[in-house]
């Protein structure tokens, strides 16, 4: 069965620190991977996605993620976080039906 797992439940960083959130997937076939974000009081929205091609994908707000097939990973990164990045981040993937990880709550201290 296809599944996605996230390693970190809650991450606390100071502004300007670098961020890396882990995500691993376990399913075969076509690999479609996504990172979604939910800012406080807002809807889930797409940060970035990978379907094929360049394994390093860039998303909105300076986020990027790297697909590493050999590690079944799709980690999210940002070189320098801001207070406004405080949110919950979800990794997701699937062939036809999207499966989500448990989410990682990021708190950025000003």
């Amino acid at each position, binding site marked *: 069965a296809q599944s996605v797992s996230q390693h970190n*439940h809650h991450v606390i960083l100071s502004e300007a620190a670098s961020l890396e959130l882990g995500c691993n997937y376990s399913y075969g076939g*076509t690999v*479609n991977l*996504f990172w*979604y974000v939910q800012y406080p009081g807002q*809807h*889930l*929205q*797409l940060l970035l*996605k990978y*379907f094929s091609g360049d394994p390093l994908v860039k998303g909105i707000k300076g986020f990027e993620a790297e697909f590493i097939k050999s590690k079944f990973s799709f980690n999210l990164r940002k070189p320098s976080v801001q207070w406004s990045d405080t949110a919950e981040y*979800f990794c*997701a993937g699937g*062939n*036809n*039906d*999207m*499966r*989500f*990880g*448990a*989410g990682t709550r990021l708190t950025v201290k000003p």
Partner: protein
Amino acid sequence: EAGVTQFPSHSVIEKGQTVTLRCDPISGHDNLYWYRRVMGKEIKFLLHFVKESKQDESGMPNNRFLAERTGGTYSTLKVQPAELEDSGVYFCASSPRTGNEKLFFGSGTQLSVL
């Protein structure tokens, strides 16, 4: 363009009662998904409609849950009778095509079963 809308935003009911959640997807989106998030845990897939047909309902917890999408437009998710463990946030999402399309999410319905 209107986004995905869900109603109600909050529902508090007693164990044994019935609740019906509604989702209006973005107009023209054939795919409609229901997800549930129990506090602190993953966003769990419940089911997927393509137009009015259930493409995949493998995530539905049990037969107390019934989802419909008559006419391929809005969808309802009924829980009858509700149990304590049904509490959580129920998200609806839609997309124009199946597979590698991003999902557009509603704001969710917070269901509390007391």
